């Protein structure tokens, strides 16, 4: 079905970062108009540090979405990781690094299960990860009785809470921001690699990819594993930022998906960039900060996220009529 083409001006090259950068710029102008010192280094650094987890999750979600799947389990994985970390560390300062390694292993395992169930058992990822979401929520509830036990040590929490102090011109650079930048570089390298291109091809047209000799299942499973790793990093930062909580990750999956879609990653796969997804997350956080400064209730967040998803998907189908 062909739909009448909208104005040419609204069109952007697929995968272009122009729209998201434009939106972000507008929001930043509105924000500084309201709160001139928002762009001052200390305030900006604190904002970027706080936004690091959702940006990481958006990057992880990019790999899954661009391959044509969805990962709804990341929020519950974050919660599970925080609760597990608290129980295992139990205030012991020396337990930090071994537990980080264990959490990474757990994140990879969850990603692997999501990937294999989706690709080998042919369960739609929507259902697979919804199932994983419920399993993790239930398991955490059962294990903790609804009240997490143990506590995170100050040493463990440093990554999410502290930073390099007294940096000239910038003040404090949060460790979270450094971790985010390192992960962003890695993600970018990955998307430029053969694997990254394969993933886009798999999402764009799995049949063609299959016929040209790509092991689709392997690429997709890898995408889920990357999402699990991203969720683990996010959990370490979130646990560090705010401590143990039974709902540390609640709702984050929707934030990550909204961010990716906002950043131009097409639901259904095959189009978009990881930088776009991460900028999408930054834009979303900026929007929420703006809402706060203008006194709008935080309870509107889900509504705004929902509207963005609907609008972005509708807009994408207008821009790229079916081929």
């Amino acid at each position, binding site marked *: 079905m062909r739909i009448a083409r909208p104005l040419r001006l609204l069109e952007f090259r697929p995968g272009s970062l122009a729209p998201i950068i434009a939106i972000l710029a507008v929001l930043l102008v509105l924000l500084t108009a309201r*709160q001139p010192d*928002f762009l001052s280094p*200390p*305030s900006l650094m*604190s904002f970027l540090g*706080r936004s690091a987890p959702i940006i990481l999750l958006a990057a992880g979600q990019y790999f899954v979405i661009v391959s044509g799947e*969805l990962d*709804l389990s990341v929020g519950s994985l974050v919660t599970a990781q925080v609760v597990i970390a608290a129980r295992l560390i139990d205030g012991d300062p020396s337990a930090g690094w071994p537990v980080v390694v264990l959490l990474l292993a757990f994140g990879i395992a969850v990603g692997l299960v999501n990937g294999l169930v989706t690709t080998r058992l042919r369960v739609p990822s*929507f*259902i697979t990860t*919804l199932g994983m979401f419920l399993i993790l929520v239930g398991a955490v509830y059962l294990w903790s*009785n*609804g*009240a*997490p*036990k143990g*506590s995170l040590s100050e040493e463990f929490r440093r990554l999410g*809470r502290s930073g390099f102090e007294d940096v000239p011109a910038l003040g404090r650079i949060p460790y979270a921001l450094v971790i985010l930048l390192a992960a962003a570089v890695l993600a970018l390298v990955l998307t430029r690699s053969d694997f990254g291109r394969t993933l886009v091809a798999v999402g764009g047209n799995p049949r063609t990819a299959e016929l040209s000799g790509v092991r689709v299942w392997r690429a997709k499973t890898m995408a889920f594993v990357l999402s699990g790793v991203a969720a683990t990093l996010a959990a370490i930062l*979130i646990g560090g*930022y*705010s*401590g*143990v*909580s039974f*709902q*540390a990750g*609640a*709702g984050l999956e*929707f*934030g990550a*998906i*909204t961010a990716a879609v906002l950043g131009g990653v097409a639901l259904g796969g095959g189009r978009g960039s990881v930088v776009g997804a991460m900028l999408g997350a930054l834009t979303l956080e900026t929007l929420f*900060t703006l809402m*706060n*400064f*203008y*006194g*709008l*209730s*935080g*309870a*509107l*967040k*889900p*509504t705004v*996220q*929902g*509207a*963005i*998803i*609907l609008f972005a998907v509708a807009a994408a189908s207008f821009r790229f009529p079916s081929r």
Partner: protein
Amino acid sequence: MTVLAVSTLLVLVGCATDEPTTGASDSPSAGTGPGTGKQSKFFVRADYDKQLALLDAAPTGPAGKPWEQALNPAMVETAKFAKPGPYKICFSNAGLNNPWRQVGFKTMQAEVDTHRGRISEFVHVDAEGKDQKQIADINDLLGKGCHALIVSPNTTATLTPAVEAACRKGLPVIVFDRGVDTSCPVTFINPIGGYGFGHVAAEFVTQKMKRGGKVLALRILPGVDVLETRWSAAKVAFDKAGVDVVGVEFTDGDPAKTKKIVNDYIQRYGTIDGVWMDAGAVAGAAVEAFEDAGKPVPPINGEDQLDFLKLWKDKKLTAIAPTYPTYQWRTPIIAALKILDGEQVPNPWKLPQPTITQDNLDEYVDSAMPPLHYAMCGCTDLPGYPRRWK
């Protein structure tokens, strides 16, 4: 199919499961403070006056055992329930789904252990926070030959008919913590209540803060009577003192959300001069938000959870901890035995509700106990302390 439909809806609406109800949120408006908004429909002036009066009442009963004391007691006859022991005591519990209830239930079990000669069987059924399950639980217990039934209702209105049905069976019913809308139980046990908590905290923050300063009020969620009454009383105090309440926000009891909210308010207003909260579980997160922003922590209230008390002591905060003591979980067992002996008991049985202040803080901070333990458990003399509560 249903799963698909529901989950599609979830994704499309982008709805996080724990967002607070939009309608009830007193969202702050730009520029000027929003004030404290309308008074809650849960606010009952007479109850408020009664609770505030109880704050100054002298308790009757053994000194140093507040779980056996009563405020302004009116005694009721229980002779018709007298029977020889040992007894089977049954307990329908609303849930064990937060640290406060977990500490409370361990305290109750330990209290049972001190009466092992007289209680032959203690049956506990956990409703897991679900009204429907608790109604079924109570119904089941009626056929199990209990000598007395203790109920901690999940919600007030929905559980009332189930409690009435239990009363009709002729067995003594004891309700504690949250109430029911019927006078049929032999006694209703709880501390002074939400108005007392909210009032004490709001008065403290108002007095310790600079005049005309900005207060941020943090609430868990709307619509729960205990929490609503806490906020109602604080609202009365803030309105009377003309305090500038710049925000009333719901945190869902989530530390990450709390920290972000407080951080946002610090950014928006530059400084916040007082923080009031309806429950202390996330007080630590609020304090951290000020620390991380490099601001002094303003006068704040938490409650008797140890993580907050320890933070208060270590960081030398200007703080107060009104309480809703977990020692109230001991009282229903004591009451059940008195009733089965045919002794008079107070109804309602109002327990004292002590406040932890700078002066008595050291008595309650105990670094050997876990951070989520509640100091006002009245459990240090019970069998198995401290291991059982760790």
